[in-house]
């Protein structure tokens, strides 16, 4: 802001004047600006930039069965990028991500739509919204574990289905399967879609919907021509949450698949467990780049800055 002011006042002055040394006052203003940004710069530098640099450095180190040591080798990347396992795990992780994204987007949009457009009073909207957050009062692990008695071979779901005569044999794909992984992901991360979508929807001027109705739009046409286009930034923010969370997850996949499914996060976690830190670091760098590319692609579609 100060810089901007300096620029503007400089532009107004006669040519050549702006080249003169800044006055003492301007200098002190600039110094104040630096002081103001320094805490944030330090926090981000220490907790974000530094760890990432460390990981990048370690990813070029070498390791053997019991130790790892400084070096500058490309072996970690070479192995990672040529291995068939990498491709398979990435494909598996993408599959989870796409499924979870589809379900979270559909369910999250529907919940947000209901809250924003069908619940009429603000207190009721806030109440229902808070109810949506109730699952977040417990930890991820507990929420995952609580599915086990429900989905297990002799769990509630199977016994209910058998007793109503829908099935004869218990369904064994309910737990420790890809189905269970996706279900748990959707359960865990749906709210990350609801919140930004609800937030954008609340900002849609209700008279726009009346204007659309006045122009003869049906409810479906209002949804596709007015509400969805205007909610896009919220959907995109929610999608970034869901995508990054699913791409980086390792615990949900391990728990809910019973150790039978792989994901990129699990690979990294296994490598760490085997003390193959340089390999884990290389995997992490590749994952980070993949996720950043995905976010960059998503940002191409929607201008999120309008939301901020």
């Amino acid at each position, binding site marked *: 802001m100060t810089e901007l002011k300096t620029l503007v006042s400089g532009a107004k002055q006669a040519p050549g004047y702006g080249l003169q040394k800044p006055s003492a006052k301007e200098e002190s203003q600039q110094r104040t600006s630096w002081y103001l940004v320094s805490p944030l710069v330090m926090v981000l530098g220490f907790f974000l930039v530094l760890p990432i640099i460390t990981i990048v450095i370690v990813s070029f180190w070498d390791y053997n069965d019991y130790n790892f040591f400084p070096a500058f080798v490309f072996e970690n990347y070479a192995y990672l990028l040529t291995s068939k396992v990498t491709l398979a795990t990435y494909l598996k992780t993408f599959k989870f991500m796409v499924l979870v994204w589809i379900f979270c987007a559909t369910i999250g949009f529907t919940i947000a739509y209901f809250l924003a457009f069908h619940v009429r009073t603000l207190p009721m909207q806030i109440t229902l919204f808070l109810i949506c957050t109730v699952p977040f009062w417990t930890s991820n692990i507990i929420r995952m574990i609580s599915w086990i008695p429900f989905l297990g071979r002799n769990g509630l779901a199977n016994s209910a289905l058998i007793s109503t005569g829908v099935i004869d044999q218990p369904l064994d794909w309910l737990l420790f399967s890809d189905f269970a992984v996706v279900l748990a992901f959707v359960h865990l991360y749906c709210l990350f879609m609801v919140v930004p979508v609800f937030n954008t929807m609340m900002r849609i001027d209700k*008279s726009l919907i*009346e204007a659309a*109705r006045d122009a*003869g739009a049906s409810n479906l046409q209002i949804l596709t*021509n007015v509400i969805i286009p205007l909610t896009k930034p919220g959907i995109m923010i929610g999608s970034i949450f869901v995508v990054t969370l699913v791409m980086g997850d390792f615990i949900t996949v391990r728990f809910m698949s019973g150790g039978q499914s792989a994901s990129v996060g699990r690979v990294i976690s296994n490598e760490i467990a085997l003390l193959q830190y340089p390999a884990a670091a290389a995997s992490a760098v590749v994952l980070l780049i993949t996720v950043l590319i995905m976010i960059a692609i998503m940002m191409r579609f929607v201008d999120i800055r309008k939301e901020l």
Partner: protein
Amino acid sequence: MSALELIATTKTYGDIIAVDAIDHKFASGTYSCLLGPSGCGKSSTLRMIAGHETVTSGDIILGGTNVTDLPPAARGTAMMFQNYALFPHLSVIDNVAFSQKMQGIEKTKRRARAMELLELVDMQEYAERIPDQLSGGQQQRVALARALITEPSILLLDEPLSALDPFLRIKMRTELKKLQRSLGISFIHVTHSQDEALALADEIIVMNNAVIEQSGSPSEVFNRPNSEFVAKFIGGHNVIQTDTGKIAVRTDRVKIQKSKSKGAISAAIQDVEFLGSTVNVTLNSDPKGEMVVSVSDNVFYENPMEIGETAFLSWNKKDAHKLAE
């Protein structure tokens, strides 16, 4: 051309009566203004006509059809919203073409039609802009074009000028009236500004407390207000308590003199306001209360009066109108 008739049209929200069984017939091809203070029911009335508010009881007849329960787009009305309600994600031309898109008219055809309407409101150069890049006056023209593309027989305007600055307001006011004349359709315009209503309307409908207080041509309403509320709301009137009830006298029909004449009442000058072509003198006369006299500036300054002086007020009998209690 189709006339619009309200028959005992009522709107209640729970226990609150917003519009209380009003009856009115809007002639076709006229410019009508619903005038009243906020909360008088004028907006609810407009929204019921538009179909954006359900009618609690009573009927709305448009061109011989009962449209009370029809959806907005099936009525032959179009509404222009107070904040214009342009779709922020669509360009100006797509905003105007919106209703045709909903009908499934193909793109080149609906865009051509939208362009015609943009030409009508002189906005064709801005066709590819988005609404955020337009000024308030320009947004209003786009909103107008978007409402008119449906070829309504009645255009409903909800306080269309209130978001504009005073200069633009007067300019748009003239354009609205010109547009209504050239299109020959009915405009129903909600406003709380009596100036706007007097300048625009063929018929003014003054509303207060959920009912119509008075309706008629601007000169009728202004010259013969039938209640104290109308006289005060339309402005330019003194309401005076006499032995036979309340009367209204226009402020510019009251004579103010320094010397006492027969029948004149004395009053102390409290304030003198210079308004350009006229001067408003506020006086206090016991027991009749505060009165205002408008004097043309040249008359006033020939014989100026000071605050605190006593003056004498009189008026012709024919200028006094009896008000209903």
